[in-house]
């Protein structure tokens, strides 16, 4: 038992949650997504807002339907860890934490290896964009909290996007904003079942679904997350897993770059909005 948490009352009742009526299993089909209103190349609508955490120097909140992530940026502040020696460059520390209630399975409060690894990926994706050469001996801390997760790939990409917006909001000098996007390759076909696809390679090329949600992720053969600086035209991170043909990869990289440009527009808008809001106050 977790003694650090306050336990619920002894006589507790399960909350009455109305589950959607049609919890029927989604079977991947060509051009038919889990969310029927979306086309394969469509992303979920993005809600991005900066400046929601007053304590932080900069902050951002992002929501892609069921994916909800908050991010706070603190610093630049003096490097706390002594013993690393003098450094002419600043350091960007990123830390991602999944809230205990964010996934279907309860997550623990301690950082697990997956979170450590994602933190590393996020800092690798953001470092090329931040002008750390201007911040000697300093550190910037980026704390990301995943409130609700709907697929790990989309979480990671949303986290990168949000963190980059929060850094810009904190007034930290950056070369460019970083937009990130995910895509999944899902084998489609009338009769493919999960067991078959595991053993043999699907005959038809898999379909690329942009910004896949959890339900789609369960069926995927592989996925890619791409972080990109749109106006510099530079990829800052790419992470792909699962088996795929070279052609699929290049196609999905192109799709992702395109999608990142769209996300950039959203980020641009959100940051400008924060300026106008400040003006009106």
């Amino acid at each position: 038992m977790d003694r650090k948490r306050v336990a619920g009352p002894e006589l507790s009742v399960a909350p009455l949650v109305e589950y959607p009526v049609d919890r029927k299993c989604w079977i991947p089909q060509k051009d038919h997504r889990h969310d029927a209103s979306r086309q394969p190349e469509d992303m979920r609508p993005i809600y991005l807002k900066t400046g929601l955490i007053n304590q932080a120097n900069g902050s951002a909140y992002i929501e892609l339907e069921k994916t909800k992530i908050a991010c706070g940026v603190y610093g630049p502040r003096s490097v706390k860890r002594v013993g690393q020696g003098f450094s002419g460059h600043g350091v960007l520390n990123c830390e991602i934490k999944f809230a205990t209630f964010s996934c279907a399975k309860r997550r623990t409060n301690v950082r697990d290896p997956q979170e450590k690894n994602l933190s590393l990926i996020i800092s690798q994706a953001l470092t090329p964009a931040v002008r750390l050469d201007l911040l000697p001996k300093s550190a910037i801390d980026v704390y990301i909290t995943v409130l609700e997760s709907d697929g790990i790939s989309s979480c990671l990409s949303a986290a990168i996007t949000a963190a980059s917006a929060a850094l810009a909001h904190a007034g930290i000098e950056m070369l460019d904003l970083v937009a990130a996007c995910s895509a999944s390759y899902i084998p489609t076909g009338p009769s493919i079942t999960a067991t078959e696809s595991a053993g043999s390679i699907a005959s038809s090329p898999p379909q690329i679904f942009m910004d896949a949600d959890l339900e789609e992720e369960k069926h995927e053969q592989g996925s890619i997350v791409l972080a990109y600086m749109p106006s510099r035209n530079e990829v800052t991170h790419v992470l792909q897993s699962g088996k795929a043909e070279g052609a699929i990869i290049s196609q999905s990289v192109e799709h992702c770059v395109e999608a990142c440009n769209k996300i950039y527009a959203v980020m641009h808008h959100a940051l400008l909005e924060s300026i106008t809001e400040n003006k009106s106050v």
Partner: protein
Amino acid sequence: MTSVADAVVPGQRLGHVQEYAPGAGTYLHQDFLYASVVGLKQISQSSSNELPTLSVQRENSQSAIPEIDAIVTCKVVRVNPRFASVSIMVVDGKPCTDDFQGIIRVQDVRATEKDKVKIYNSFRPGDIVRAQVISLGDARSYYLSTAANEYGVIFGTSVAGGSLIPISWQEMQCTKTKIIELRKCAKPM
């Protein structure tokens, strides 16, 4: 009055290097100027022959960090015969969110007769000091100097607890007890 149309975000292209000179909040990449912070674009014409300077006024300024030649206001934390340790609170008039550590070494206290300087007769813990950053220092602290007239103690309390007022460049007097204490005083600016 600036309008929202002048608002820019990092990575936005602002102009060609032949049109403008890069100012604060911008950077140069392959002959083009780009914004590096979120804020409002400003163009200032300095002199007639030079290019106008293009800068971006930060919307949400980042917390100040000390840099070389910056004038800082700091508080003395502890002293020893070799140096005084201070924590830097304000850099160039901008407050720091988080204190930075600095030291004023004995040879950096004043410009003349350096060998006669006694740290204990220059600073006491609790004094507020104006100083200049001379080096980024080592991994731990910035190196500061008070070797100029306008740098030194600007506020302090006496042993008795009264506030001190400067009476010469190296003496301060307690307002309560009229006892004179030794300090490296800053010239009022």
